[in-house]
């Protein structure tokens, strides 16, 4: 843990909100990415973000430096993800008419951003695969899904995932193998 981060933690533990906000800003993008990768929904990821940092805020006085601060936060993140129940219906189908923002923040319909080199048939095919993959991921148990998305999509090492989930590396491997087997079974008829 960097010396300046230790200083920030101590100040935040004394009630310094600026210090707490600086700590949040150091780690919140990663928290958001983990949450978004797990729930695949910006709204649900925002809910998880709030819950995680409220728990960090309330638990900060009891943080005793037994682990890295980041590990502690990401451990809270995985716990919140695993217990999260979506309050909103998720729109699994991406409408081509929905707006996305460009680099300047200007909204444009999604269909205008699609490459002209990809035919409409290919775009439909890709969308179908995306939907099937999304549905297959939903069939995983919460822990299988957490391990799989953290390893496969977010690139965390199995050892890091084991620390975050507070379990043994062997257990994490077991979840990964189970998740892969299940996904293979769910998607075996898919024409890649």
């Amino acid at each position, binding site marked *: 843990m960097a010396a300046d981060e230790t200083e920030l933690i101590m100040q935040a533990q004394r009630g310094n909100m600026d210090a707490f*906000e600086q700590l949040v*800003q150091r780690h919140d993008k990663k928290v*958001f990415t983990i949450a978004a990768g797990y729930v*695949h929904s910006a709204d649900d990821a*925002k809910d998880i973000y*709030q819950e995680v940092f409220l728990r960090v805020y309330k638990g900060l006085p009891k943080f005793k430096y037994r682990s890295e601060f980041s590990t502690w936060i990401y451990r809270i993140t995985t716990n919140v993800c695993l217990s999260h129940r979506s309050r909103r219906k998720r729109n699994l189908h991406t409408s081509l008419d929905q707006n996305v*923002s460009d680099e300047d923040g200007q909204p444009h319909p999604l269909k205008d951003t699609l490459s002209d080199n990809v035919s409409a048939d290919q775009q439909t095919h890709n969308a179908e695969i995306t939907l099937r993959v999304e549905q297959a991921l939903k069939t995983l148990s919460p822990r299988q899904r957490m391990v799989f998305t953290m390893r496969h999509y977010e690139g965390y090492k*199995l050892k890091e995932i084991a620390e975050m989930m507070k379990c043994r590396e062997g257990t994490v491997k077991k979840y990964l193998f189970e998740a*892969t087997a299940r996904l293979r079974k769910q998607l075996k008829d*898919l024409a890649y």
Partner: protein
Amino acid sequence: MKHKQFKEWLQLSTYNELSEQEQALLNRHLATCEQCRRAFEDLNKLHDALAHHQSVEVQEPLIQEARRNLRLRIQSGAAQESLWNKIKDALDEIIAHPVQAALGGAAMIAIGILVGYLAFRAPAESSFPIQKTSTMEAGESQVTNIRFLDRNPQTGDVEFTFETVTPVRIRGNVNEEHVQKVLARALVSNQNVGTRLRALNMIGAQAEQRSNRLPEFDEEIKQALITALLHDQNIGVRKEALGVLRNYLPDPVVVRAFLQVLAKEKNTGLKIAAINSLDLSQYENQPVSSEILEMFRNKAQSDENNYIRIKAKTALQEIQ
């Protein structure tokens, strides 16, 4: 090394999770094993398909919005706590600490007495010859769920709601009215099955001993027993309640409850106990209510249980 181990290593190898030694062993194995090479190709195809699943992009405006909302939530949470602290500070300024403690204690005792009075006040004198010998002791009331509604810093006026829980200890006879009331309440509202059963046993033991008409205050007991018979989630409680209610037959309300058991109860044992308890032979010299007749006819024709059908048929034949 077994194939299963190599297949697991294939997966780990796609994530660069193998040591150099393990990777070398795997590569040597793949050179000679067609099955594992095919498995490796399948795995790569699976990964290609999974690549279609894009994570939600974490854009800066989204993060900024989340930070703003977090700040607001923390600030509003801190403001509620400081309001309570401000009230405490204001009271500290107005009233000296020992006086506060004395007033607080007096208020708690008053609340405890009020709760005890409301819960256990005696009704009109009963003619039932039971001597009142019980004693009641109220413990210290506990204040919970305080919610602040309004305050005026200038005048010091405050408005808030709260709940109090006062533990009470009773020592007395199970036939006494207020003891019976508590048992009746325990029967319908306590979440612990063991407590409900114990209450039933106490009520039942006394009901069996009485041969005369039951006194008025037992109406509450009777209703509690009927509620337990018809609505308790636990089958053991329902069976016990039926057993105790037998002592109240042929009270029309109890008969109606037993008919409801026949009509709606899912447990066959309980239905059999109910139909066995409804003794139609007592109606030899008087008309049987149409409600009972209709239920028995219905059961004789269409109950799924053979015993109940025969029992109903026999009972109908006996009164005709």
